[in-house]
């Protein structure tokens, strides 16, 4: 109990919190991200309707403008409805959940993969290092969205049709995860190469610890802080990658839309003046991606002593 208190106390007096409070942009970004995450987590409780339940939709509610009663049904929606009569507010909240879930899990996948490969490459050196890092070099020559589309395409081709929609989200996560591991691997490898020459690693090696244990127990904790920064920035990238894939029609299915899918639907109605279908999901995506990015930037500055 007391240990925890002192931890809180230490946090309250830390540079970290001090810097955080002094940066209004960061505070605002943080609040936005927390709010959006809470909305996504408690979507079932917060959203007025469940937009994924196709049977509950009334097509006659389609194209209702925000805050105006529908011409046929008389129902009113805060942010209006899309072409299928889905309440946009609910669709955005549920879409946010899809986007954040895909983004977070994809980043975790990329992180686990990148950190492991980076550790092995940096620690082992030699041909293992060459192999892993050349693979990374080759991968970065392609834009990551292209890699994600390639993986997505292959996976869809291999899956039987009835499983495609069920596994669309999983495939999306794997596709984005596999396309974003390189920055993690490169950073971790560099730091590992520096760390492995230090005395504490040499000492660990002398007392006969295995390489796995040295990597995980001794080196890993010392290379984590840059990983945290990359993870935050990659999260923003992953959310945008998911939106891009869905916008291109290869991501989340239209019956269970993510933010990108909603934007794709909305862009068809820009010329006809039904602006709300595009604007609200796009604004939400912008707020989310921008806030996460600003947080990541701030974290990078804070955790890098050379920038202080």
């Amino acid at each position: 109990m007391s240990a925890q208190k002192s931890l809180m106390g230490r946090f309250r007096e830390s540079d970290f919190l001090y810097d955080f409070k002094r940066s209004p942009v960061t505070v605002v970004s943080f609040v936005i991200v927390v709010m959006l995450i809470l909305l996504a987590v408690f979507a079932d409780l917060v959203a007025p309707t469940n937009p994924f339940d196709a049977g509950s939709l009334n097509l006659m509610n389609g194209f209702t403008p925000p805050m105006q009663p529908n011409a046929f049904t008389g129902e009113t929606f805060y942010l209006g409805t899309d072409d299928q009569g889905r309440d946009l507010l609910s669709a955005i909240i549920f879409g946010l959940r899809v986007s954040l879930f895909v983004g977070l899990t994809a980043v975790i996948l990329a992180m686990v993969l990148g950190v492991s490969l980076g550790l092995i490459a940096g620690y082992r050196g030699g041909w293992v290092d060459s192999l892993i890092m050349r693979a990374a070099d080759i991968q970065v020559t392609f834009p990551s969205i292209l890699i994600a589309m390639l993986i997505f395409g292959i996976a869809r081709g291999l899956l039987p049709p009835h499983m495609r929609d069920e596994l669309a989200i999983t495939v999306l996560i794997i596709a984005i995860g596999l396309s974003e591991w390189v920055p993690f691997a490169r950073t971790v490898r560099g730091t590992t190469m520096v760390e492995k020459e230090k005395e504490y690693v040499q000492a660990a090696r002398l007392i006969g610890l295995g390489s796995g244990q040295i990597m995980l127990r001794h080196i890993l904790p010392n290379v984590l802080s840059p990983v945290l920064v990359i993870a935050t920035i990659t999260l923003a990238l992953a959310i945008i990658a998911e939106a891009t894939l869905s916008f291109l029609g290869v991501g989340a299915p239209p019956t269970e839309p993510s933010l990108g899918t909603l934007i794709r639907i909305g862009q068809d109605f820009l010329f006809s003046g039904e602006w709300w279908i595009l604007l609200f999901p796009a604004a939400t995506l912008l707020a989310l991606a921008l806030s996460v990015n600003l947080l990541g930037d701030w974290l990078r500055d804070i955790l890098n002593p050379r920038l202080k």
Partner: protein
Amino acid sequence: MKSLTTRLAVGVVAGVFVSTLASAETIRWARAGDSLTMDPHAQNEGPTHALAHQIYDSLLQRDMSGAIIPSLATEWAALPDNPNVWRFKLRKGVTYHDGAAFDSEDVVFSLNRAMADGSDMKELLSSVKEVRAVDSHTVDIETHGANPLLVNNLTNMFMMDKGWAEANDVMTPHDVAKGETNFATMNTNGTGAFKLVSRSIDEKTVLTANPNYWGKSIYPSQVTEIIYTPIQSSATRVAALLSGEVDIIQDVPVQDLGRVSSTAGLKVGTAAQNRVIFFGVDNADGPTADLRVRQAMNIAINREAIKKVVMRDQSDPTGVIMPPFVNGWTAALNEYPAHDLDKAKALMADAGYANGFDITLNCPNDRYINDEAICQAAVGMMGQIGINVTLDAKPKAQHFPFIKGGDSDFYMLGWGVPTFDSHYIFNFLVHTRTGDRGSWNPTGYSDSAVDDMIVSLESETDLAARNATIAKIWAAIQAQQMYLPIHNQVLNWGMKDSIEFAVQPEDQPHFQFLTFN
């Protein structure tokens, strides 16, 4: 000084004038989807025929109003002493794009090619017994019985050069459902108004006017070049028209009709299309094999809502898979049942599916007007009676072979009727699947009495008796709720004011008819 300025000005004006004239002869044409193949007999599909019509000719064709007019045949009639034989007089002096002469050998070859394995045009010629060359410019087509409507089946039956086919090993069409391709998939040699210059699938196809075209003096023939670009996204397609990047689009999205027609320099041509959109369901296996389930699905579809919201009134809801253009159509058949969820749920319960079932809906997303949006709406409507639908929307290039493969339990299809007769619908969509009939009937529906009646239509010369049989077949199909009809499409072509072009009910622009004003 002054005269120099004037002269300069005149020069500039003249230059601008000349350059507009030159560029005005190029037509930049866009629609949602590309042609599926350049092989004229491999796919019986609207956009495929629409592009093929620029390059290849058929014996007779429909003009922009839909009336049958001569093309490569100048005269045709059944022989007075034998009604089973139609005699066609061929146009003389016609050459292919490579210079070879067109003659009766090519007609015999082309019609046999269209009846060969791999052809998607077989059903149109199922009444044909033999095609014979009488002399170099006369051809006889003998049918199994007298077929008074044979000529209606020939408007999309394109003529290829036998020598060219032999030289390039394209004696038979490639089977699209099996994923085959051949030389003719990407190369052409027709007698049509335009020659293929270059083609990049789903991107751009360039055609140039055929200097030796036989119809040069018959049609206005003002277009010298066609640049055809499929643009799947409706917003992008409309933006291309609004910005002047393209001159004509065949499918103005319904939500943008007001915007396009109120834009200066643009107009919208509207016409009812000879095409019906419907859902196919498995009639033989699974929950939909139960008639009550199909009836429940049929009345769960809210056609009025689809018309109002998805189509913005640009459709004509129907209860039968037959557009009003077609012989056999009646207002009674066209009537659709009221949307009735309670009755639908009761039917589902009767059939033992009170808790519904899972099914996948296969849908194209670049073929019909708002195809994917209609399917999405259907997902919701089926959900209201407990049917949990997974939507699988794909480009038509993947959708059509999948449907034809017979693996779909629930799918969207549209059907245009180039012959303007019910027999065409029956032979492709209703007849039991055999080698040469029923190729687009993957539903498993099979009724030998109906099959016999369909075949009998091909040799029935008494039109009253024929129409009675047609009505009987429709009654049988409707009683079984074989298909779930949605609506007939309305065409909206968006184009520049400077173009004079009638909207053709088959959605086929024939660019030799286009004039500039």
